């Protein structure tokens, strides 16, 4: 698993470098607009990738076969035997078509995951507004019986602690309720025994690239939360999470952005198919 985390971390580094600059316009564009542009562009891009990673000739051949079988069904609809045989062949051809897209799917899987993780940084949550509160949860490593380190939330101009620290014994978590004070990106610091640990906090009322969680040493968590470095496996702190508010929008809001992204990218790919001469 160690190696997997290292690979994901390495990929994240590239994705972050690209995402930070290529997706930067999201920060000043209206959400619906940026979401539509990003979705349409990914649709077209994926189409191009599909074109060069799939066997286009074979796909065209299978599609022609399907057309022929459908015609056969139409012409001989009185003959049950012919219709049934044609139906079976259509089914087989569709399966063949699906198997032909396995290679391009595999090629696209990783970049799409990386892209979605980058988009989630912008759309899954909204930053805190000045004066707004949120819960920060610091999860400690170790097991139930191990002793608790001394954890201090360092005072900073970005956020005040309203309640906390409150210990959740069972989960080895420490929670604070903080209130944002200053707009911008801030590093909040925690003293854990004698070490200092950091987590980014985003405050503002526009679209900001924000990390809900600084992940633990786990490949999936690292993939889902690419923005900040995962904590090493032997660190006293396992993860730090900020409970940012949901963004309410059916286009560019929490959870819904994925649906919108999927629909628009599919529509865009479908529309650009004839121009790019791609058979799907």
């Amino acid at each position: 698993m160690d190696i997997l985390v290292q690979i994901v971390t390495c990929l994240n580094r590239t994705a972050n470098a690209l995402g930070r600059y290529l997706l930067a316009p999201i920060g000043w564009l209206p959400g619906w607009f940026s979401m539509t542009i990003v979705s349409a562009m990914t649709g077209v891009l994926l189409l191009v990738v599909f074109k060069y990673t799939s066997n286009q000739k074979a796909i065209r051949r299978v599609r022609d076969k399907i057309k022929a079988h459908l015609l056969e069904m139409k012409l001989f609809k009185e003959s049950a035997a012919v219709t049934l045989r044609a139906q079976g062949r259509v089914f087989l051809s569709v399966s063949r078509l699906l198997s032909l897209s396995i290679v391009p799917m595999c090629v696209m899987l990783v970049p799409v995951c990386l892209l979605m993780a980058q988009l989630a940084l912008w759309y899954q949550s909204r930053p805190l507004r000045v004066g707004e509160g949120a819960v920060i949860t610091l999860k400690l490593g170790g097991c139930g019986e191990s002793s608790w380190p001394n954890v201090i939330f360092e005072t900073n101009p970005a956020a005040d602690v309203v309640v906390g620290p409150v210990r959740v014994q069972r989960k080895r978590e420490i929670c604070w309720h903080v209130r944002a004070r200053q707009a911008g990106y801030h590093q909040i610091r925690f003293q854990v025994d004698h070490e200092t640990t950091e987590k980014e906090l985003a405050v503002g009322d526009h679209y900001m690239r924000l990390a809900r969680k600084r992940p633990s040493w786990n490949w999936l968590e690292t993939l889902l939360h690419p923005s900040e470095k995962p904590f090493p496996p032997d660190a006293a702190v396992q993860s730090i999470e900020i409970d940012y508010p949901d963004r309410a929008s059916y286009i560019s809001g929490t959870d819904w952005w994925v649906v919108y992204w999927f629909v628009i990218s599919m529509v865009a790919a479908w529309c650009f198919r004839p121009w790019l001469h791609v058979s799907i």
Partner: protein
Amino acid sequence: MAKSSIRKISRRTVLKRSAIAVAACAAGVGGGSFWLGRRKRNSTHLGKKVIVIGFDGMDPQLARRMMDAGELPNLAKLRQGGGFRQLGTSIPPQSPVAWANFINGAGPGSHGIFDFIHRHPSEQCAPFFSAAETVSGKGYWDVGDYRLQLNFWPFNHKLPATLLRRQGVPFWDYLDEAGIPSTFYDLPSNYPPSPSQHGNHRCLSGMGTPDMLGTYGTYQHFAEDGPQGTVNEGGGKRTQLIFQQETAKAHLVGPENQFLKESTPTSVEFLVHRDRQANAAVIEVQGRKILLESGSWSPWIRLDFNLSTPAFVPDETAHGICRFYLQEVAPNFRLYVTPINIDPSDPAIQMAEPDSFVQDISDRLGLFYTAGFQEDHKALSNGVFSDDEFVRQAGMVLEERLALLDYALQDYEDGLLFFYFSSTDLQSHMLWWNNNDKHPTRSESEAKKYFGNIRQLYQRLDGVVGDLLARYGNRATLFVMSDHGFANFGRQFNLNSYLRYHGYLGRPECTSLFRDVDWSQTAAYGLGINGLYLNLKGRERDGIIEPGDQQEAILQELTQRLESVRDVNGQQVIHHVHRTDKAYSGSATALAPDLVVGYCRGYRASWATCLGDLTDEILLDNDSAWSADHCADVAEVPGVLFSNRTIDMANPALVDLAPSILNEFGLPIPSSMEGKNIF
């Protein structure tokens, strides 16, 4: 917030202007009158403003004393201008009855609301809430454990519905028809909200609006010393919390899943993690964490209750909201959860007219109490809240109301604006005590101290009136009114026990109307707070009293006997007994009691008798924290009426307000109204 309100107002203005321009063009081509349809644009109000502020239960005696002492300068200013009168209340002076009088401009005979509780005579005294009734649906599709009701073709099942029982024509219908806009915030006696025919009327329902459990407010209380399992107590549920490694798991009970054949309540699981050292706790509910220090309240939290359906239908979700209040961390962990209110941003039932009105408010104000009763008097009566905790919670309700008033005023242009405050009623029920008699639950000094809160409340609301006067001066006609006044409630009278003692209700050893009463020995019974019913032949299922002479004789006898009841100290208990055949007129009297018992100040119907229970004693001390009331005689607890115009009428009553409001807008007073113009 201010920015969005400006945007909203300006958008409305733009829309209005466009509508006027389009209407003008249409008129020019002669087609306007056709497609503008029934909406009457040529109203007579010409930007007229009328604002009605309802302070439920504001008492004229206390108001007068405080005005004399210079403590209510703004109300005193109105009094100085000839704009103050005692306001006659309803028979009986109960809020649902009184507000319905206000709404119809006529008495209970026109609206058919006579008490909090009515009975079905055909089912021999089966009680139900008078304001609204839920009627069950018809037809269903049986699918395994589920019962689906589909109100479309080919099923055409009839869905269950809640119906407003108030009858007659509400006065805003006349404004609506005349094209005069009217907006009501938290109007009592109007749930579910009556529809607007012409689209000029908006209303957010108040008293009578249920919580998500379909009750008038059910808090949920979790404590280490709570009862095992969940125990229901009037107005609340108590549950024991068991901590393991400082974490406890519990469930918040939500609405019933009506899709199931055996409808069962839904619930939401939550975890409580306690940190004794920090004197605080973390509550985890539906993926959200809430941090609370001992003694602190959470903001409103959204809860999604999953209503399961058969596999082929996607599950439904009902949205509710609640606030958590951490009372104590250790040694006895105690957590109070408000009644689960309907989410105003996504209401599960219609609680406003039009439907979207409550969402418009929520867009600006976020989440807020939506149930009719917001001050949690039940929590105080049941000992879940201390006096101070109740005062604090009631204060939070008032703050929300003031924010709503702010919204209402920003949104208001012209026409009628009605705004309701419950604080003066529910705080008074729990905190009022204006003499040196022994208080039911407090020492003399405590009683004095908490009554001070009522005086402070009056002062705060006087400030609200001051703001309105500063804002509108004489550009708006202002009515500040209450539906009734207030009195101490020190002694309670069990009407049914009295009737049993005098042989009107049998058997002599019976304990409840719903368990062991012998109707063949019963001539009369009490139900609700002020109602007395004869067991009349031909009307009640098991009636024994012959209509006509026997009925008349027993009515006279009971009236005379009840008015002569004296307490142990010789004090009169009942001020007046009203015969409803004389007091009420109109077509909605079918469910009216025969007599309405009007108590003297200091007395009220006992807690037991209201719900048909009998006690050994007829007169008892009230031992509830609900220590003041207004369900006395109409003459004992009048309300207040203030206006920035001189009031000419010497003895105005609630029924006179609707006619006066219509008159302000230049509309005729309908013949169905009993009241007259007060100016």
